């Protein structure tokens, strides 16, 4: 039954509903399902799935290892390329990556369930504990990694493997970056993000200092002085502004901040959510905040996106997830003004849009959506903590193929660098590549 308590309120559902709603969106395969699914793989030559995987995991090989009864060997194959294989199995938009490229997609529209098989393998490994890697002999070299998200920790792990001594400086109390604070709750259940962080740190040689923030008592010059190399994986710490009238009214929130609260909430019923929620944006964050609002018991949730379904950054599959959870997506409309009553948001005035020659314009026609809560989900922005020392490109850190910044001895990767895909898996790839480059640099 829909909860119709007006305004913004918690406790819209029964405790058991929260548990069901925020359970695993894709339950793991059991052993038999994994065998049957792995048998569907053709072990392609120069496999298109592998080419499509940003971390280039040897997918046919790991699937064959599952097929022959060795999921832990499969996990090792995965970790060789992607130490966050467990999280990536849960959060990768496989429908636009490996599974889209799978030849079975072309054959019958039903790709091999690579993500679920990857999860099966990595879960099997992690359930038993232990580390797949031993560290190389200590090199005596020290590397500073700023940011304990996927990019930073992937880099740290690979550096530790090579025998370097790594210190991770992480501003937040917990490590994991958006795996811990951003990913939708139903994609990463049972505190998986922290378990994975522990797994990664299990290799040894990595010290994490939580609560240490670059730009606040810690600056790049010091790190360059004290360490042999520096890697920055600081993500995107700013949020793009809405640019609509009254967008500072109570009830207008940043989606990422709200999701972070949700991810950290020990009791979801204590988390207030609007009865009528409007989300502005068209990416993964928009979909995630919309779906999670709905799952928290909001009665009506509408995503307002200024262009059509094809242009949305959220994949067709994610749009479908939203729609099947009861989220309405309103295309070709943009926010004009927040309607305020007694200092609180009560609605949003939107204007229809149209596109001509790639240029988007308002049509002048408007409509009002009632809303007690309005989420900004129109993208995050890079915030500089280095005192402007690094060259930028399109507002993010400029790097080369090896993830070297414009400053010698400083590498960067993940969301904070230009030209990325803003995906967990792409950040992991950056981290690993940077580590290999740093390793060569330190050994030279």
């Amino acid at each position: 039954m829909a909860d119709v308590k007006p305004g913004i309120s918690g406790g819209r559902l029964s405790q058991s509903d929260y548990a069901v709603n925020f359970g695993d969106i894709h339950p793991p395969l059991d052993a038999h399902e994994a065998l049957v699914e792995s048998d569907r793989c053709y072990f392609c030559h120069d496999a298109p799935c592998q080419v499509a995987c940003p971390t280039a995991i040897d997918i046919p090989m790991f699937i064959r290892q599952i097929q022959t009864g060795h999921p832990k060997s499969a996990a090792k194959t995965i970790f060789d390329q992607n130490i966050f294989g467990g999280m990536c199995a849960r959060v990768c938009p496989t429908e636009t990556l490996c599974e889209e490229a799978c030849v079975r997609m072309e054959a019958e529209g039903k790709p091999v369930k690579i993500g679920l098989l990857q999860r099966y393998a990595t879960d099997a490994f992690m359930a038993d504990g232990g580390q797949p890697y031993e560290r190389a002999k200590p090199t005596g070299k020290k590397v500073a990694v700023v940011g304990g998200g996927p990019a930073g920790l992937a880099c740290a792990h690979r550096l530790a493997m090579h025998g370097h001594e790594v210190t991770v400086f992480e501003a937040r109390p917990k490590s994991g970056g958006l795996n811990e604070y951003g990913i939708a709750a139903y994609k990463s259940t049972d505190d998986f993000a922290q378990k994975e962080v522990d797994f990664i740190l299990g290799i040894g040689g990595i010290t994490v200092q939580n609560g240490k923030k670059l730009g606040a008592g810690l600056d790049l010059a010091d790190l360059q002085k004290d360490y042999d190399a520096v890697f920055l994986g600081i993500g995107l710490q700013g949020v793009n502004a809405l640019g609509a009238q009254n967008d500072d009214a109570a009830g207008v929130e940043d989606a990422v901040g709200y999701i972070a609260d949700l991810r950290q909430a020990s009791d979801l019923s204590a988390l207030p959510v609007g009865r009528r929620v409007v989300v502005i944006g068209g990416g993964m964050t928009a979909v995630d905040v919309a779906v999670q609002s709905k799952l928290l018991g909001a009665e009506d949730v509408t995503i307002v996106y200024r262009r059509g379904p094809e242009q949305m950054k959220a994949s067709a599959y994610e749009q479908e997830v939203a729609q099947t959870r009861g989220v309405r997506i309103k295309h070709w409309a943009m926010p004009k003004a927040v309607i305020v009553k007694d200092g609180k948001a009560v609605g949003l005035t939107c204007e229809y849009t149209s596109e001509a020659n790639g240029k988007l314009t308002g049509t002048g026609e408007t409509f009002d959506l009632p809303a007690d809560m309005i989420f900004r989900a129109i993208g995050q922005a890079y915030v500089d903590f280095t005192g402007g020392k690094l060259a930028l490109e399109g507002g993010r850190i400029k790097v080369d193929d090896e993830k070297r910044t414009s400053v010698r001895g400083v590498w960067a990767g993940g969301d904070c660098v230009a030209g990325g895909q803003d995906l967990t898996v792409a950040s992991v790839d950056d981290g690993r590549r940077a580590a290999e480059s740093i390793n060569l640099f330190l050994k030279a």
Partner: protein
Amino acid sequence: MADLRSHFIGIKSPNPFWLASAPPTDKEYNVVRAFKAGWGGVVWKTLGEEGPPIVNVNGPRYGAIHGADRRLLGLNNIELITDRPLEVNLQEIKRVKREWPDRAMIVSIMVPCNEDSWKAILPKVEETGCDGIELNFGCPHGMSERGMGSAVGQVPEYIEMVTRWCKQYSRMPVIVKLTPNITDIRYPARAAKKGGADAVSLINTISSIVSVDLDNFAPVPTIDGKGSHGGYCGPAVKPIALNMVAEIARDPETRGLPISAIGGVTTWRDAAEFISMSAGTVQVCTAAMTYGFRIVEEMKTGLARWMDEKGYATIEDFRGRAVPNVTDWQYLNLNYVTKAHIDQDLCIKCGRCYAACEDTSHQAIFKEKDGKRHFEVNDAECVACNLCVEVCPVDNCITMVRQTEGVDPRTRRKINPDYANWTTHPNNPMALKAAE
């Protein structure tokens, strides 16, 4: 609608699908339900001598090879002949035959290899009113250690001798069931014929160890830490059975000898193949043990539909049609040139054909065109081996296209439309000698 009736060495049955001598035919309860389900006949589970019946192991008797979804592909067993008293079996056989007069009732027998034993059991079996007997010279495990089953089946002289006794001491049609555990199946078949057999049936199970349990290093199935070889059957053995049936069908000495084909028959198609290879009936064991008696329904309707589509009114209309096309390698047409061809609309670009041909065959597949992933056969290298066809996951995506004129780009020789085989080939030293 096609007429499926079968008339095999004087034995009539409403269809050619018989249950082979095995657990499905071990008792009245089973056989009656099999007949209700529509089976055309049964070969009763092998009877042994009078007296205390043999015993089976009390641990597992089966092992298997499975496909990924646990589809049973091959079954291995260490079961012996019937472990129920002879008298009980005979009474049941008699009763069932009386109640199901239109179904074929064959009784399988295995007794020690001496005249008295056979002389003693034959009249008892005949008294049941059964339609014929099948001599089990095939069982490869257990009974063979006691000088029966395949121990007899591997010695053509014994086959001939026992067959003769059976013809001598009974008026029943005699089918000799052959063991595949022999180098050349034609010898036991010829012996059966010489002994006066009305027909042969084959194959019995193939000696096998289906797997080793890697935790305790013992064959599966494992009985108290040990295992012994068993007999292999099911879909995996069909190709072996089909070849053996073909060998007997085309051997000048046994040509025309009626055959009841056994071995991996699982669908109507398997049956049609065996019948086209001259079998008069087919016998089924593993498929029934895997899926139950109801599968005969699919076999019957499937065979009838195929016959209707092909315009065959009766089994005889297509029986044996494949036999003349089985030949020796030396007579295959060496002037027949084909090339693999990939249908680009069907190709899903998995690259399996490339990996197979590049790594293990003739490097005859290109994997790129204009910088793009694209698989195409290089006629100048393709030897037409068919490997790519077999590894391609898409039906009919790669086909063999015959080249009837011009030059074979691989050999650079002109295509010769005439038939020519190895016996006259210039590279054949024997051929050269003959020409001298």
